[in-house]
């Protein structure tokens, strides 16, 4: 079972290939995905002397994250799955972030305009992702009696948790966490692949302004 895994949600573009659940090739660039994503996929495949036809499934981070990066990554993943007629596993950024730690945690990332995407992960790892003002989420975190870990994708809200040893910022989704999250996530097929879009949890700023 060979799986191609793509993450274009942040400042790094990550391409991984796993074989029977273990990482067999990786190509990570500190670059946005527009130009090099497909070259990276080719490079990763070449490393293990494989071709796209050898892939059995694709996993891709669908967000939240960089608007353009995700549009590119999700389009790449679903087009590859469409052509190769293989299943696709959508991965959610905050689930991957949580998978990097074995403990229950809060995960969050900047959503712009003083908002943040956040999820409170239970011991089973499941979580509902939402978007809310960072002030509200910070208050909830500070009053959580079971708080063990705060993980942020990026470091926008670092100053809100000064000296808090439970806080940790991450500038990219770690390969191990991506693979682990992939094992836990369900796959989709057929029409669900074609209709897949990045996670747009909130309207664009233009739409927000227009609705006022």
């Amino acid at each position: 079972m060979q799986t191609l895994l793509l993450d274009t949600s942040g400042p790094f573009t990550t391409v991984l290939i796993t074989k029977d659940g273990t990482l067999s090739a990786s190509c990570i660039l500190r670059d946005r995905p527009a130009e090099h994503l497909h070259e990276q996929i080719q490079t990763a495949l070449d490393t293990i002397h494989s071709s796209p036809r050898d892939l059995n499934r694709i996993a891709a981070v669908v967000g939240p994250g960089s608007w353009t990066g995700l549009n590119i990554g999700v389009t790449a993943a679903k087009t590859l799955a469409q052509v190769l007629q293989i299943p696709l596993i959508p991965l959610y950024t905050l689930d991957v972030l949580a998978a990097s730690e074995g403990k229950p945690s809060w995960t969050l990332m900047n959503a712009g305009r003083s908002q943040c995407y956040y999820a409170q992960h239970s011991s089973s790892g499941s979580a509902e992702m939402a978007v809310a003002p960072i002030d509200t989420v910070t208050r909830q975190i500070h009053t959580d009696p079971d708080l063990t870990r705060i993980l942020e994708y990026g470091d926008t809200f670092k100053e809100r948790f000064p000296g808090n040893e439970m806080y940790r910022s991450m500038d990219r989704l770690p390969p191990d966490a991506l693979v682990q999250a992939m094992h836990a996530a369900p796959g989709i097929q057929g029409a669900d692949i074609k209709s897949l879009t990045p996670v747009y949890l909130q309207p664009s700023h233009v739409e927000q302004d227009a609705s006022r």
Partner: protein
Amino acid sequence: MLILGIDTSCDDTGAAVVEDGHQVRSNIVASQYEAHERFGGVVPVIAAREHTANISFIIESALETARISFADLDAVAVSHHQGLMLSLVVGVSAAKSIALACDIPLIGIHHLEGHIYSNLMGRSDELHFPFLCLTVAGGHTLLLKVVSHGTYELLGHTRDDAAGEVLDKVARHLNLGYPGGAAIEKLAKDGNPHAYSFPRPLMNRPDGEFSFSGLKTAVTAAIDRDPDLNQADLCASFQQAVIDLLVSKTMRIAQKHQLRQITLAGGVALNTPLRKALQHAAQEHEYQIFTPPRDLCMDNGAMVAGAAYSLYQERGPDPLSIAALANAPLGKTGIRYRHESKYK
């Protein structure tokens, strides 16, 4: 040779299958008018989101209509230059994935070349190099001498707004909705084109330079002065001014450069009064006018595949690393038709 052409340069998601550069086996376009209508123009982030949601269905539909599968494709072509950056990258990502997964050549096409080639498709027997191309849309207004495949000379362009852009902006000022060109044309049918005396900037200059912003200001000022004005008369007069500018410059440049075949391309080529005016003016000079079929005027994948067929013979395939560029020089000679700062 079967080429899948993809265009996501602005707000239409287009995919088409074209055989041997001229036989359009399918041409599917998903319009985003409804998504942008309330904003009175295209919103780039929304356009990108809609492209991402639509692209797989449009490609599938193009293949199904052409009664082929991915395995039958010989190449995939995509508009990668000229347009909205956020939109272009979606089509480019899809095209690269198809090239990679099917192991077929990837052909990047300048969006403007797609419009230029919309007239050449299936007409190589009657349309001969060199010819003059007036390409008019929301993003550009150009007069080009098409010297040979992929080689152009810039004979004129707008120094400010594009013709399609001022049509959209005036329509927005009148609350006519989007796209504005079609709304203006519809209202203008019942209006008097001589009711208002709008300026025709640079019309009498001997060169091919256009300017539309002064006209736009004059029209919007007229609207602001009299909110109860006769919209049909205003639209007819405004449309006539745009047509006069486009036709007179085109004829003058054709005469100056002795180009007897003239093609009209781009979204504004859908405007029937413009087509008629150009035909009428051409008859006087015994020039030949070529206009593309109406479904090849707006942004579409067929024109991209059509251009790719000819240009692939000249240039060969592109690497998977081709980048989308909002503004890119055109053709072998690298024509720069926008302000220099746009190319940085």
